[in-house]
């Protein structure tokens, strides 16, 4: 028997090397901080079924390598993504400065309707902060991104980041702004709506017998 869900969303996690993309994914899927995380090779993959606004949504998440040498490989995964987490490290201005490049990539290679949430990761390392919340939220506003500061270590805002992105996509589907049937939308229907819960066995017979009385 296969998994049941109403929708499947394809997600991307992008951003410079060492910003904690894989740790965010790990925290989201396993609810744990990944202690000995290595550089991602190519693109990794994870999935989780979540409940958003009364719908079950399976998030199929592609966690890309941040290192430059993998850039052309990871770019080939952009097409057909419905949502993306664009990650930088609040303790590294360099990763923040690279955001424009990542964003350009995402805007040009992925679907024009892609929903992107900006994540300032390593929120727990506030003492080493190099990028202020205000600065980043202004950047997010200018580029029409959602924005959260997250911590893959403590788990703060990790779930929220994924769910917020999923909720936005769901709203766009409901408002008709997004068409899941369109090729490369990164969205698929599941058959959950068909697998309704049944009545307890025998209850129908009982009611009928009562009628006969």
């Amino acid at each position, binding site marked *: *028997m*296969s998994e049941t869900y109403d929708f499947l969303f394809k997600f991307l996690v992008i951003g410079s090397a060492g910003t904690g993309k894989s740790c965010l994914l790990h925290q989201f899927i396993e609810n744990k901080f990944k202690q000995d995380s*290595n*550089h991602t*090779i*190519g*693109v*990794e*993959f994870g999935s989780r079924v979540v409940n958003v606004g009364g719908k079950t949504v399976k998030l*199929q998440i*592609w966690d890309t390598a941040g*290192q430059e*040498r*993998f850039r*052309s*490989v990871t*770019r*080939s*995964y952009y*097409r*057909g993504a419905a949502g993306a987490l664009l990650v930088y490290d609040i303790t590294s201005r360099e990763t923040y400065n690279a955001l424009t490049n990542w964003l350009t990539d995402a805007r040009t290679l992925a679907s024009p309707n892609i929903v992107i949430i900006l994540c300032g990761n390593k929120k727990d390392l506030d003492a080493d902060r190099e990028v202020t919340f205000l600065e980043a939220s202004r950047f997010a506003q200018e580029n029409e991104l959602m924005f959260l500061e997250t911590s893959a270590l403590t788990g703060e805002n990790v779930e929220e980041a994924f769910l917020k992105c999923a909720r936005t996509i769901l709203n766009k589907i409901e408002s008709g702004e997004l068409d899941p049937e369109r*090729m*490369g939308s990164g969205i*698929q*229907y*599941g*058959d959950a*709506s*068909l*697998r*309704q819960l*049944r009545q307890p*066995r025998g209850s*129908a*017979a009982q009611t*009928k*017998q009562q009628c*006969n009385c």
Partner: protein
Amino acid sequence: MERAMEQLNVQLNRLTRSLRRARTVELPDDNETAVYTLMPMVMADQHRSVSELLLNSKFDVNYAFGRVKRSLLHIAANCGSVECLVLLLKRGANPNYQDISGCTPLHLAARNGQKKCMGRLLEYNADVNICNNEGLTAIHWLAVNGRTELLHDLLQHVSNVDVEDAMGQTALHVACQNGHKTTVLCLLDSGADINRPNVSGATPLYFACSHGQRDTAQILLLRGAKYLPDKNGITPLDLCVQGGYGETCEILIQHHGRLFQTLIQMTQNDDIKENMLRQVLEHVSQQSDSSYQRILTSLAEVATTNGHKLLSLSSNFEAQMKSLLRIVRIFCHVFRLGPSSPNNGNDMGYNGNKTPRSQVFKVSVWCIVIFTTVGATLYDCTSSPLELLWHSLDEWLVLISTELDRKCGDAASSSPGSEIASLLLKQREADPSVSTETPALLPPSLDPEVVMKTPEAYVDGQDVISMTANRLSAVIQAFYMCCSCQMPQGMTSPRFIEFVCKHDEVLKCFVTRNPKIIFNHFHFLLECPELMSRFMHIIKGQPFKDRCEWFYEHLLAGQPDSDMVHRPVNENDILLIHRDSIFRSSCEVVSKSANEKLKQGIAVRFHGEEGMGQGVVREWFDILSNEIINPDYALFTQSADGTTFQPNSNSSVNPDHLNYFRFAGQILGLALYHRQLVNIYFTRSFYKHILGIPVNYQDVSSIDPEYAKNLQWILDNDISDLGLELTFSVETDVFGAMEEVPLKPGGTSIQVTQENKAEYVQLVTELRMTRAIQPQINAFLQGFHTFIPPSLIQLFDEYELELLLSGMPEIDVMDWKRNTEYTSGYDTEEPVIQWFWEVVESLTQEERVLLLQFVTGSSRVPHGGFAFLMGGSGLQKFTIAAVPYTSNLLPTSSTCINMLKLPEYPSKDVLRDRLLVALHCGSYGYTMA
């Protein structure tokens, strides 16, 4: 006296009546005897007779008899004896009497559709709601058999149309399961619960789907049946796919569009039988052009996701690889079907008898033009989601390749971020064909931990190539499959060739590091000689056994499974051979047989003999191969060593010689195809000719050892000052006259010098070894290649080819003994068995061969030893079975199962004596002993 007379009269009267009617006219007093008198009459509905007998008798009409304890009323209802039924009811038979299984007469009447009986039983107040021991009521019985009309009548009397049997099944369930449309409608009209689950949660729709009842499913869905899984979560769609019910699936999808995606997603599920799922998708794809396009697009999407998952290093390689290849196989299958619409000019419509696209292509290249130009209605591959996967694959290979190049230009330093390159470099060092520019301190072992000296040289503590090579190779395999399904059979897609050429370096690096990749994923090599040549040196370095497996795996691909060995042989397909003219008659029948038939299997029968089976086939190959080298035909000549053969350059004395060479090639090809060994050993040079390997001067020694030595001498010594006066020509005896034949154009005037002597030796070798017998070689190869593609045989060298064709020449008694089984009372401890092996050890090599031939039908031990002895149905060890001893009894054998039937001889001497008699008299000819 009078009374006595009267009694006599009565008796006489009775006797007359009895004789007239040919039966008794009075019932016996006891019920048990009486009931058996009445039963046949009831069954035949002889109501007058029954009535007569019952009159004045004390018989209990409710008397239950027999194993199932039925009354006569049951019998009448069961047989439809309506008059008797009424008679019995009038005489007070209980209409609701239940037999041992709880069945009433009404149940039996319903089961058998006895309409009148049912009516009468109801008149006499039979209760329609009684359940038998399994909970079945009369309406269940009617529903099972689809007796709609009767059901309609009965339903008026039924209080609960949803009455359940012991499994919670209603009449509607059973009607759906059996696909009785009108019955289903009748039950629904009578208010049956359309979504009723049974004890395991199965609904009427579930039952209809589980049996592929298309029309019933349609009715249920139109009446608003819900799509519900059972308690284990098995859905109606799951059931349709399990059963391969395409039409029912199509109906489900029509009603629930979401199920289309679910169906597509099922291709990822390992538990679902691929052929069933393929059958379903095939059907759905043929509904319309758009369903065809949609299925291909969706399959391509799933394949792409799975391919990307496979390229994620943390995914399970085996599972993801299987999943990807399965989806791609299904994709290719559906693609080849083509769209159903007849307006695209192709006759590829689905009519249950599919025309594979490849066949359509075979017609002419013109079809390719159609394929590309009529692309509007066909599936447009260039916009397929799979392109994303191929793009990623390409980027991966480029990534590895660029890092490799960068590192090569900067071999000394080990800069961070170039770990892949250093690994690749190390790999190149392991490959002797590539220059070795780095220190020789690297150990030959490929352990990266040992090789890496700096922490930067670790890629996250692991080795990128070993992590990605298998995954990328599997995706390459998928890419090849997709490229191939768009091509006519036997042609490699130019796009794929271009791809391999582009990534040549990286692919070679993969296979050098892990040659298993070739056998597991690079099947494309076998289908494309051009690509094969690039990898040949790596393939040749692999163990013979691995190459053998790959060879047969590919050779037999597409043939029925080996467990089909026992399929019946069509009488017309038996090769009927005359033993006394075996060569000629074999040549005749083989040339008349279709090659494809011969590939499927060979059945041989000798004229006038009954024997058939693997033993006879083996004998045929054995004798025939001896005949091929029979000097009378002048086809082959013995070489200098006296045991090997090669084509006779003068074979044209036999006017039909080229036909015979083609036949000889066919026989050897056929033997190799069916893993049968032949009794011929060829010269090295001839094996080289079969393989297409150029001969060298050393091969000359097999036909003229003295001359070979001379050639060797020329090569080994400086000939500048010897004054040999040799030119590039030889003198040959042509019909008695000496003639100078140039070795190359203008050769008679070109001097052989120290500088060009190697060329001279090569040319003169080719003249002696090849040119002299070129027509014979060509004819032989033409025959051989009908069964063995040249690209496949290339996997072996000349020594291995000999092993494959002729098996092991020596018989190893120890190996024989180790791989022998005993039956019918023998075991290794038995004195007779110990004597037997002592005798075998004392036999000459020739006698051992005879013994082997006596028992197995072949004089050869298969490659790999006795453990690989073949019988009629696969591996079959040499077996010795005990037979009771009578004086002078000889051993016998069953060659099909490699069994020696050895009498329990009283002494070793008797055993030896009898065995030798049997060997020398009886190793030829078959009768059904």
